[in-house]
């Protein structure tokens, strides 16, 4: 089984899923962080000198074996779907499993300004909690209408209160982490905006996290790309912890390799 991983968290987060797979099934993580033109963009302002098509072509060359299951997490789902369309029909997997991945369809091909600070700060708090192994709970709506300068101190307070960050973590330090996180998102947003995907040649299975990036959209925009069917499932956890929770891994493993 191959899994396309877009960075943000270390590729080792998928160890939980690897352990949940049936005996004899191995997991190969295709980590986009290994592509300098992709990875460095998160540190240099969020503009990658590449395209979804070029990334997909590079990764498709890594697919081994005549038969394999394919999974993509987050932006990795967009790349995985593009990879399948590059393969000859006989090498395509039976289905593509998308883990809380947002479709590269019109609804989500947006300018940078559409990613507003309250949304980004909420995602950042979720990310920080997963990264540090301690959830960072924010009151629903606490960030509504706030900019980064006013909202980030609320995230800092919540993160220090929960133990995700040391009590004396300075705001400029957290700002650097936030800016780098957002540059990674902007990089993916900018790669997605001009991309014109082909409809999928295989059925799609979307596994949303209970706390998805976009809770209000059950299909995350994938319906127009799924002429061979779109199945929906939910895994425990949020966009990030769905990768490390054993209960989520069990659910995902069953969808990738049905008994």
């Amino acid at each position, binding site marked *: 089984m191959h899994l396309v991983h877009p960075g943000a968290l270390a590729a080792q987060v998928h160890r939980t899923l690897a352990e949940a797979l049936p005996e004899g099934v191995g997991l190969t993580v295709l980590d986009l962080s290994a592509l300098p033109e992709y990875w460095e963009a998160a540190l240099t302002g969020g503009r990658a000198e590449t395209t979804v098509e070029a990334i997909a072509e590079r990764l498709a060359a890594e697919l081994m074996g005549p038969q394999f299951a394919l999974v993509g997490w987050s932006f990795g789902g967009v790349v995985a779907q593009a990879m399948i369309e590059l393969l000859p029909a006989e090498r395509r997997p039976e289905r593509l499993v998308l883990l809380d991945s947002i479709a590269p369809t019109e609804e989500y091909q947006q300018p940078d300004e559409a990613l507003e600070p309250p949304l980004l700060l909420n995602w950042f708090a979720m990310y920080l909690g997963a990264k540090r192994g301690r959830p960072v709970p924010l009151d629903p709506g606490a960030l509504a209408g706030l900019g980064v300068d006013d909202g980030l101190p609320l995230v800092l307070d919540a993160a220090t209160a929960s133990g995700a*960050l040391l009590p004396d973590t*300075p705001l400029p*330090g957290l700002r650097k982490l936030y800016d780098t996180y957002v540059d990674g998102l902007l990089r993916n947003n900018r790669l997605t905006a001009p991309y014109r995907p082909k409809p999928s040649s295989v059925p799609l299975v979307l596994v949303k996290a209970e706390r998805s990036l976009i809770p209000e959209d059950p299909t995350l925009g994938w319906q127009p790309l799924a002429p061979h069917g779109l199945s929906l499932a939910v895994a425990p956890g949020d966009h990030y912890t769905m990768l490390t929770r054993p209960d989520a891994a069990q659910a995902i493993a069953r969808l990738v390799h049905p008994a």
Partner: protein
Amino acid sequence: MAQVTAVEAQQWLVEKIAHRLGVAPGEVSPEVFFDELDLDSTEALILAGEMESWLGFELGTTTLWYHPTIKDLAAHIAEESSQRASA
């Protein structure tokens, strides 16, 4: 903007890293490579942001690549600070 010397930069880095690691400053060697320290990427970015706030200027993304120890980085910071002060 005040000019920062290599000694000041090294002292600042040692103190902050020791604090983050929960050890005494004397236990952090200026010769050790950053990737040998028990700092994860989150801690490293937070430290970088704090340092840039203290210095008043940003460091390039490849700085740690070319200056991979506290001692090397402190010398680079002093040079950069000197250039900016005299600009």
